[in-house]
């Protein structure tokens, strides 16, 4: 049965005071699925996750069960949870950690058992000081109650989960899984060249699976109610529900757990109570700052990954008018579900300023390893900023497109694409706004400024 808006899997304890302590969590049923999971064969858990159509909630949307099967047969893999939530406009993992850390830990126990993880790590973003404390307390409680660090009876023996919370120290790039692994190994967070993929050679040179917080938090329900149930909640190849973080110009911004079938229009008009002050919509970034923006006539598309990627309602991103951007192998780019961070922008929004702010972000966060990204993001930030501030030069629009197209697909990790795609997206959907800034006429500093 498809999910409806009352279906709550990962957000069921949001707003429930005390659910983030062990006693509160236990009274909400935390760790209830652990005996069932540990009573199953490891392969049966992986099979159930495959059947569930659970897809990674960090941004790439890769099928989780399939990812798990990339671990070489007969080998154990480290489980690493990616809690480095830093994609602009994304604020869901932080909510899970704050309100329901024991749900996450329960998911980690299940995942660790399925993968045979000798020691699991949660890599939490450095700036999340409060959440790191909440999570560390929860882990300490779980150790004290014997859910962690103690042999638990499992199919054919016992299994012990070791879990460590590892704090980052401020670097967006560490949300990229290989960069995260380097950071976890005590190095600078530089992404690694793939292959080898982490599933084959990851943390400390061993097979490793990196999964997002929301992904892992879904595991207890999948094991409890079955992969089939989870798959049926969803839509197409995407099982379950989705946490959508709505920010920007709506009446009720918030983090909502929603059915995959929900369209962007329903989210804005219904879930979030319409546009702020009744103003008109200008654009929506559907899934975090790295995905291409869409226009008001493109919002009747569900938030599900394949729908956003393939719906013909969304015009493809172009490198110049009439020429589609090529993601590689002739694949066109429309938009993406990404991390579920939806930014709603009204008619008063200066798209050039928003784009420039984003480009400044990517330039700041580029790790400096690959030349196209290190140089290109800096140039995008500078050119977009001068346009936003009224110092645009003739040809700047074309210059931005050309720089972005030069970055895309030419870097080790997806940060290059993450900067290039929104740049090209803004140019495709709001080209006139950019072209109007090409003349060197100083416009009043817009509010918001860059």
């Amino acid at each position, binding site marked *: 049965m498809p999910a409806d808006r009352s279906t709550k899997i990962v957000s069921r304890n949001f707003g429930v005071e005390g659910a983030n302590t062990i006693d509160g969590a236990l009274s909400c049923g935390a760790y209830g699925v652990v005996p069932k999971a540990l009573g199953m064969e490891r392969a049966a858990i992986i099979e159930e996750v495959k059947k569930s159509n659970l897809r990674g909630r960090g941004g790439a949307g890769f099928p989780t069960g399939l990812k798990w099967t990339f671990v070489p047969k007969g080998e154990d893999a480290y489980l690493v949870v990616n809690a480095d939530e830093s994609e602009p406009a994304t604020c869901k993992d932080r909510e899970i950690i704050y309100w329901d850390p024991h749900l996450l830990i329960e998911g980690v126990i299940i995942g660790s058992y399925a993968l045979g993880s000798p020691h699991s790590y949660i890599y939490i973003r450095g700036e999340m000081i409060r959440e790191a*404390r909440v999570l560390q307390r929860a882990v300490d409680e779980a150790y004290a109650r014997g859910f962690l660090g103690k042999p638990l009876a499992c199919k054919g023996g016992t299994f012990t989960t070791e879990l460590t919370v590892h704090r980052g*120290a401020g*670097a967006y790039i560490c949300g990229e899984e290989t960069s995260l692994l380097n950071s976890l190994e005590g190095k600078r967070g530089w992404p690694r060249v793939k292959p080898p993929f982490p599933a084959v050679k990851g943390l400390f040179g061993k097979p490793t699976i990196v999964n997002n917080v929301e992904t892992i938090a879904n595991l207890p329900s999948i094991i409890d109610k079955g992969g089939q149930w989870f798959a049926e909640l969803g839509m197409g190849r995407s099982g379950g529900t989705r946490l959508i973080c709505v920010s*920007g110009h709506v009446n009720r911004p918030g983090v909502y757990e929603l059915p995959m079938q929900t369209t962007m229009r329903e989210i804005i008009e219904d879930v979030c109570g319409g546009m702020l002050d009744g103003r008109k919509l200008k654009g929506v970034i559907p899934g975090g700052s790295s995905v291409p923006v869409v226009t008001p006539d493109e919002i009747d598309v569900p938030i599900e990954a394949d729908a956003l990627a393939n719906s013909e309602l969304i015009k493809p991103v172009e490198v110049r008018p009439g020429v589609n951007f090529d993601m590689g192998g002739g694949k066109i780019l429309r938009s993406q579900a990404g991390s579920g961070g939806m930014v709603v922008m009204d008619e008063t*929004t200066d798209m050039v300023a928003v784009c420039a702010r984003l480009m400044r972000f990517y330039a700041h966060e580029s790790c400096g390893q690959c030349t196209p990204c290190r140089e290109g993001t800096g140039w995008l930030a500078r050119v977009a900023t001068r346009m936003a501030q009224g110092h645009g030069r003739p040809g700047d629009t074309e210059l931005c497109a050309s720089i972005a197209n030069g970055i895309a697909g030419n870097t080790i990790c997806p940060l290059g694409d993450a900067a290039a795609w929104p740049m090209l997206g803004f140019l495709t959907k709001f080209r006139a706004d950019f072209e109007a800034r090409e003349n060197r006429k100083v416009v009043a500093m817009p509010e918001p*400024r860059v």
Partner: protein
Amino acid sequence: MALSFSDEAMQKIAAARSRYPNAQAACLPVLHIAQAEFGYLPDEVIELVSNTLELPVAHVHGVVTFYTMFRRRRQPVGENLLMVCTNISCMLRGGYRVLDRISQKLGIQVDETTPDKKFTLIEEECLAACADAPAVICGPRYFLRLDTDEKVDRMLQELATHPEPEY
């Protein structure tokens, strides 16, 4: 006299070290412990960390300079480190207004500390509080939906009397 860690810090370091199969992996946790102890990470502290974990100084230096939260500056930060988000979700709801108001009230620019060492102001990238924009983090505390000057002023008053240190 050469710099050294307190006994309490050494215990924390040993505990952190035990969570990883090699010393290098304890680098970030130990740098956090060091920063909590000394307030910032000048050359002497980097050397201390490198000796403690038996890692090359160049490695530790490279790590420290890569991450934005590790501070090399000689001046330790104020009691309250105000991290003001100005990324898009906050920008759309007045993040820059919050930044300007704080700057005006405290009489300091971004990356500066007030003379009484109570506040340091920094501009942050997305703090993952987008649905409650505009947002400021100070230590473990969130200040959300700062949509009026009054709310910003109240935050500063509270923090002046009840600081929220990072560690």
